[in-house]
């Protein structure tokens, strides 16, 4: 296999004087599922947003599939990418949000077809056929005509996953995808994600679902205070944490 899908070297991110990421270094291989664990405020979500340039990093290097995020390197100088170039790169990275962020004025089907039609210029009929397929894949074939407000949280999140998949991303980012769901609805969403992992999708998942991390993740990364405290196979990090901080966190969530 060629190089890693995501490579971060000493990534720093500040909001004003608050330093949220204090040097993140990690690699995600192609086809790998990585779970980011850690207390809230540890910078997991911010790091996720940096990967598709929703947030600009202040220092360090961050690249996706061998290309720098948000910049082009000419010699030893970095040039900011134009908005259209950033948008094109984002189109190749799917993102799923904690609060779904479905477009409420569009039906489930329109939510899924919107980006392919507008960004990829896919013919409308093709986009609709593909969207139907994707909705069927997440178990929502009959809900194509429903508006988000008519769907349960779990159904909305699965539509959001289908929406992201419609752009045929090479990488999927999940930002606490089940945190806003009723406990009984979590299972369907996790199942859809597990299916995706089995299909070989590269995924970075910020989650508090330890069961999912243990079963599905190839690598688990524990973050706290803007740094990576430890990472490794789930059995090691969750089963035999080396850091006291990891141990105390896990004892609270397990």
């Amino acid at each position, binding site marked *: 296999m060629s190089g890693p899908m995501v490579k971060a070297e000493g990534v720093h991110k500040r909001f004003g004087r608050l330093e949220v990421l204090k040097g993140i270094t990690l690699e995600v291989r192609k086809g790998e599922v990585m779970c980011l664990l850690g207390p809230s405020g540890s910078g997991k979500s911010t790091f996720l947003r940096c990967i598709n340039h929703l947030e600009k990093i202040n220092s360090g290097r961050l690249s996706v599939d061998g290309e720098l995020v948000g910049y082009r390197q000419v010699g030893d100088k970095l040039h900011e990418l134009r908005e259209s170039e950033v948008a094109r790169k*984002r189109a190749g*990275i799917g*993102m799923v*949000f904690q609060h779904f962020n479905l*477009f*409420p004025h569009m039906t489930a089907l329109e939510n899924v077809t*919107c980006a392919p039609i507008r*960004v990829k210029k896919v013919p409308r009929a093709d986009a609709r056929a593909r969207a139907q397929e994707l909705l069927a894949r997440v178990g929502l074939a009959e809900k194509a005509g429903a508006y988000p407000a008519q769907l349960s949280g779990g159904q909305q999140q699965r539509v959001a996953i289908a929406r992201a998949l419609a752009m045929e991303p090479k990488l999927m980012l999940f930002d606490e995808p089940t945190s806003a769901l009723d406990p009984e609805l979590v299972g369907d969403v996790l199942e859809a994600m597990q299916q995706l992992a089995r299909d070989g999708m590269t995924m970075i998942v910020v989650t508090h679902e330890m069961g999912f991390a243990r079963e599905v993740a190839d690598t688990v990364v524990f973050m706290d205070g803007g740094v990576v405290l430890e990472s490794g196979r789930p059995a090691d990090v969750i089963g035999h944490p080396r850091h006291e901080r990891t141990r105390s966190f896990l004892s609270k969530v397990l």
Partner: protein
Amino acid sequence: MPSDEVTETQGRPEDIRAVPVKHPGRWLASAIVLVLAVVIVHSVVTNPRFEWSVVGHYLFDERILEGLRVTLELTVIAMAIGIVLGVLLSIMRLSPNPLVSGASWLYIWFFRGTPVLVQLFFWYFIAALYPKIDIGIPFGTAFIHGNANTLVKPFTAAILGLGLNEGAYMAEIVRAGIISVDEGQTLAAQSLGLTRLQTLRRIVLPQAMRVIIPPTGNETISMLKTTALASTIAVPELLYAAGIIYSVNFKTIQLLIVVSGWYLLCTSILYVGQYYLERYFARGAARELSPTALQRLRAGWLSYGHHEGGIR
């Protein structure tokens, strides 16, 4: 929305049948309102000075109808300018470039800070300030040369005055609408690869519409009436047409009644239009759309039905 489900009543405890509370206050208030209504209607119908036959005679007078046409034209064009300008100004206002947002702020400050009547006069007398108007490259060649008096006729002055003023108000309305849309929508759209402009057009503005439409409807209704100010700069709109007639026959009140009748009819039509527009843009926001007037009639309860209670 109340559910229409009717479950079986068998096997359930009996419905409560209590003696309702008496509301003597409501009866008294109703009586007062009724008596007042009768008094007003009686006086309007029996007072011969109203001269209803004259009102009827001029209601469909050719000059009045022509004035109405000009009023509607003014309203539509001025609102169109106002809305386009408002969207543009609000986007400028939200721009990260301080010069661009500052320019928008200055525009809004000026046009909201001076009376629209003064602005109308200003455009009407523009020739005093700029006798010649050239349109072309600044400090370069001009493509259109013109005498301001021939370029800016009263109708043009009214369009400019009303439209540019409206733009300032619409800008604030659109901006409020844009701000009201959850930031997560923009994030989601951007993560899908939509550009800033696509996000605004396809995702943010359609949702902002729910907030923008009701005040815009009010603005349109208000504009319809504000066009009457154009009569002061000799635009032959509805009020001006009536003025021409009553300056000859001195049936001032009767013609003002004619004018009021037409304004009322037009604003009523706009109310209905606004209702349907709001309904259209509410899709997705509510689980069920509110019923149209027809649906309500069909359901057997008139438009007052959903205003429960009233006087308490």
